[in-house]
C-alpha cells in the first residue's frame, strides 16, 4: 500500500475515496431512511442517457449525466410525492428509457467511445485534481444544507404528514433531498460507475442504521464505513489488478453480510 502511495493517481484516488465516502454516507442515509433506494437506482441508470447524449453531441458526458439525473429525479419526485404506490412503475419506466436512449446515442456516435466503460463501472484511478475539488465543494455544501435544515429534514424523513402539520415546507425539502441525491450519484459514479453506485449509497447506511440512535450518528457511521470500504476496495484492486469499482462494492457487500450475521446471532 505504501509503495502505491508514491503514485500521484493513487493519492488522488484515496483522497477522492474519502470525499465520496463522506458524501455517500450522508446522502445515502437520507436515501435509505426515506426509502428512495429504488429511485436512486433509477436516477443513476437513467443518467446513462445523458452520457450518450454528451458523446453524441460532443460535450462532456458528465455534464449530460448531471442534467439527466437532476431532471429525472425531479420527474420521479413529482410522481412520488403525489402517490407513493404508483411511483415504482414510473421509476422503472424512466430507468429503462434513460438507458435505452444512452445506448442509441452511443450507437449513433461515430468513432469508438473509448471510455464508455468508465461511466458504467467507474474509474477512480483516473480522477483529476479538479474533480476532487468539485466533489469537496459539493460535499461541504451538502453538509451545510443538511445541518441547517437538520430538524426539518429529520421530521419529514420520519413522519412526513406530521411535519406538514407542523408547518415544515415538505415539498421544498423533499425536492432538495432528491437533487442532492442526483448530484451525489453523478459524483459517486466517478468512483464505482452508474451501475454500482446504488450499492455504495445504500449498503453503509443499511449497516449503520442498526447500530445508531439518531440520524446524525447514522450519517457519521455510514461515512466512516463508506471510507473504509472504498479504501480497502481500492487497495484490493491495486493488489490483484482488478476493477476498483467492483472491488469496492464486493467489500461493502461482505461488510453487509458480516453485520447481518452479527445482528442475527447477537440478538439471539
Amino acid at each position, binding site marked *: 500500500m505504501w509503495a502505491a502511495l508514491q503514485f500521484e493517481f493513487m493519492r488522488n484516488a484515496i483522497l477522492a475515496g474519502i470525499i465520496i465516502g463522506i458524501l455517500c454516507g450522508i446522502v445515502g442515509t437520507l436515501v435509505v431512511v426515506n426509502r428512495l433506494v429504488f429511485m436512486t437506482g433509477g436516477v443513476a441508470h437513467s443518467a446513462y442517457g445523458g452520457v450518450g447524449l454528451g458523446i453524441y453531441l460532443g460535450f462532456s458526458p458528465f455534464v449530460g449525466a448531471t442534467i439527466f439525473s437532476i431532471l429525472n429525479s425531479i420527474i420521479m419526485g413529482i410522481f412520488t410525492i403525489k402517490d407513493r404506490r404508483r411511483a415504482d412503475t414510473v421509476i422503472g419506466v424512466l430507468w429503462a428509457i434513460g438507458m435505452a436512449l444512452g445506448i442509441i446515442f452511443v450507437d449513433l456516435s461515430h468513432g469508438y467511445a473509448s471510455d464508455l466503460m468508465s461511466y458504467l463501472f467507474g474509474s477512480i484511478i483516473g480522477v483529476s485534481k479538479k474533480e476532487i475539488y468539485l466533489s469537496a465543494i459539493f460535499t461541504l455544501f451538502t453538509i451545510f444544507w443538511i445541518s441547517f435544515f437538520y*430538524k*426539518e429534514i429529520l421530521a419529514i424523513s*420520519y413522519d412526513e*404528514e406530521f411535519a406538514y*402539520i*407542523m*408547518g415544515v415546507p415538505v415539498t421544498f425539502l423533499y425536492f432538495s433531498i432528491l437533487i442532492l441525491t442526483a448530484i451525489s450519484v453523478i459524483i459517486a459514479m466517478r468512483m464505482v460507475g452508474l451501475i454500482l453506485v446504488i450499492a455504495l449509497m445504500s449498503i453503509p447506511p443499511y449497516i449503520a*442504521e442498526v447500530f445508531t*440512535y439518531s*440520524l446524525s450518528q447514522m450519517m457519521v457511521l455510514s461515512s466512516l464505513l463508506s471510507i473504509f470500504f472504498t479504501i480497502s476496495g481500492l487497495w484490493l484492486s491495486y493488489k490483484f489488478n482488478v476493477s476498483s469499482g467492483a472491488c469496492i462494492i464486493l467489500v461493502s457487500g461482505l461488510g453487509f453480510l458480516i453485520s447481518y450475521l452479527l445482528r442475527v446471532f447477537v440478538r439471539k
Partner: protein
Amino acid sequence: MNSENAIEVEHLYFSYGNTVVLEDVSFEIKKGDFCVIIGPNGGGKTTLLKLILGILKPDKGKIRVFGKPPHLVKHKIGYLPQYTDFNLSFPISVMDVVLMGRLNKKGLGKKFDDEDIRKVEEILKRLGIWEYRYAHVGRLSGGQRQRVFIARALATDPEILFLDEPTAGVDPEYETGIYEILKELNKRITIVVVTHDIGFISRYAKSIACVNRRLVFHEEGQITKEMLEMAYECPIDLIAHGIPHRVLPEHKE
C-alpha cells in the same frame, strides 16, 4: 360561523380514484367536546381525519377548524397518526421524536433551545416516560411507544387534539391509562379520537360520529344499536355485562 364550534364540515365529498370514500358528510364538533369517530375498517375514518387536518384535499365541500381552513390553523392542532405508519428501524430517540412537536414554534433552521427541552421534559414526566428519553423509539413496547407519540402531539400545545387509533398495539392494561390522560386533557382542549374499537371509549365520549361512507352524528356519548347497524351494515347485539362493555356482531352464514 358559530364561535362555539371547533370543527365545521359541510357537504364533504372525497374519493380515491373511482372509489367514493366519503359522501355528503356534514357535522359540527363543539369546543371542549370529546368526540369519538367510529366505523368499520375502510369506512373512511382516517380519511376524514386527514381531510380535517388538511393532509388531504376534499373533492367538494367545506372544512373549517376554529373558523378557518385547516392549513391556516396548523399551530393549534395536535395529531397522533396511526401506529402502523411508523418505520420502527428508523434510528431516533424518544427525545427527538417528541421535540418534533415543537417544530411549529421554531423558524426554519433554528435550533431547539432550553425552553423546548423543558416543555418536553414536563410532558414526558407527566406521561411517565422521562426515563426512556434516550431510548430508541423502535425498541420500546407498544404501550410506551404510543405514549411517546401522544407526548409529541401534546408538545405542540394544541387547542384540539386528533388521535387515530390511540390504543392500537397497546397492551389492554395501558388502554385505560391512555384514556384517563385524554380525559384529563379534555378539561382544557377539544379531543377527537378515531377508533374501530368501541370497548372502552363509550365511557369517555361526549359525542359520537359513525362513519361508513356517510356520517351520522350523535350529540350524546351513547352508542346505540341503530348506530352500530348503520356503521357496520349488519345486525349487532349489544352486550353490556361488566366493564369493559363488549359488542359482538351476530354470526351469520
